């Protein structure tokens, strides 16, 4: 099934692009939204953060037929990641050759009014890249991997889920009166820096009718920023400073204890 999807993808993309040109029947409904934070600062005592997302549906006309749904997704910067499968050699388990996943989001959280499959059509998922399967790209897989690509891709999702970096909350969005919606997305403490993307998709009859898009920059600040930058720009100075700090601490400890416990 996954293979067929990959093969017909270019064709579907053309079709969906053409359809997108036509004015959608329900263009009268628009998303108006706010996030509780427009940026996230990683300070020394950063222990995760919560982003409260809320908003409403603006209409010029009476509510159309069909059930209204909303999906709220926050994704971290996509980076390549190396996946290795353990192999048994000479009785011990060692890391096998690595497979580079071309891009996988460093963070992925999605909340919706109902499970994604019930409210989002297949083509719309591909077009807007909402589901996690759409966000993990494995393009130049080595020859020997052809039958096994899914296992490596699934491993990224499984391991990052276990670390709390990927999660889905199918009933995480509260929608009232088919107009007001809200959710809270928790960002874990082990975030990486970069531009995070928050999206709100409004859906009716499995079709996306409007999208709200906002970038949330996540950055180290203060001491974190200083140490990280120094370690990259002047590694020699950083190293010498680390050693001097260690020597000073060692001397301090020795001196203090001699003073208090002669």
């Amino acid at each position, binding site marked *: 099934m996954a293979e067929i999807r990959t093969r017909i993808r270019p064709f579907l993309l053309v079709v969906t692009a053409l359809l997108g040109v036509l004015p959608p029947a329900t263009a009268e409904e628009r998303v108006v939204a706010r996030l509780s934070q427009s940026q996230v600062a990683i300070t020394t005592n950063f222990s995760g953060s919560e982003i409260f997302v809320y908003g409403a549906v603006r209409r010029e006309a009476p509510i159309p037929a069909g059930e209204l749904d909303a999906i709220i997704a926050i994704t971290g910067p996509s980076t390549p990641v*190396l996946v290795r499968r353990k192999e048994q050699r000479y009785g011990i*388990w060692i890391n096998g050759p690595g497979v580079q996943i071309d891009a996988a989001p460093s963070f992925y959280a999605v909340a919706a009014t109902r499970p994604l499959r019930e409210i989002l059509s297949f083509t719309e998922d591909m077009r807007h890249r909402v589901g996690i399967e759409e966000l993990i790209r494995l393009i130049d897989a080595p020859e020997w991997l052809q039958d096994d690509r899914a296992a490596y891709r699934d491993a990224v999702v499984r391991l990052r889920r276990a670390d709390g970096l990927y999660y889905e909350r199918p009933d995480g969005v509260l929608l009232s009166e088919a107009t007001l919606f809200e959710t809270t997305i928790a960002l874990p*403490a082990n975030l*990486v820096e970069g531009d995070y993307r928050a999206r709100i998709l409004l859906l009716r009859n499995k079709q996306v009718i409007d999208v709200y898009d906002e970038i949330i920059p996540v950055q180290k600040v203060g001491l974190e920023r200083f140490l990280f930058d120094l370690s990259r720009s002047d590694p020699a100075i950083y190293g010498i400073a*680390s050693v001097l700090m*260690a020597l000073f601490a060692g001397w301090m400890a020795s001196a203090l204890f001699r003073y208090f416990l002669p």
Partner: protein
Amino acid sequence: MSVYLPIAEVSVNALLILGMGGIIGVLSGLFGVGGGFLMTPLLILIGIPPAVAVATGSNQIAAASFSGLLGHWRRKTVDVKMGMVMLVGGVLGSAIGVQIFAVLLEIGQVELVVSLLYVVFLGTVGGLMLWESLRAMRRVRRGTARRRQRHNWMHGLPFRMRFRQSNLYISVIPPFAVGALVGVLAAVMGVGGGFIMVPAMIYLLGMATSVVVGTSLFQILFVAAFTTLAHAITNQSVDALLAILLIVGGVLGAQVGAQLGPRLRAEQLRILLALLVLGVCLQLAYDLLRLPDEMFVLERVDG
């Protein structure tokens, strides 16, 4: 109280790290070993990336060994000449070790090689220590004094030098080689190497026992400082914030351990250390042999 580590890019509980540093500090004060061989596996266990654990471990070892060295310096139990010879070997070994580590990072086998080295060295050292301690205890009971063999194959080697404080007149090659080996291990395993060097100095070189710990701390200090610097430059994996937490816990613990040491009985203490070393070794060996719970691992790709 959580702290976000800028280089490791993970958030950890500061009290947990302080406590870890403290407990290992107590052990190092008690046994005169740096405790790096326990620190690195523990850091990896709580989720610090192995590269950061190894590099930051060296930084912590520099602080702990300097603190210990100051005490020995005041008591004049450091053979500086012997320390210098071992140090030349150590710096060379460390430079090689950091390069080996960079290659291991590249091919994704850091975990495997570090675990294997731990199993081999901890197993050997722990086993020997246990054996020695048990024999010594039996001797004490029988009341016979221990005789150390003073002449072996090493005494046929060239470049002999007099080491007054160690009470030795031997070739510089064995101490140089011991220093170099410890340097490589320090860089690859993130250890000070005291747990290998101290037995090697006593049983292999036959140094006077009184100067062994001070001289080993002298060598460890410089090798750890050099390794920290080399890791910071080559792998950019020293986390200064993590190091501070470990150091504060470690130096306090070391002083507590040093106060505690004389009140406990030496031979029993050594058996305890031997059992601890063997325990860590068996755990690591078991992890290599058993069927892993998770068959896949993820690695960061930089740049």
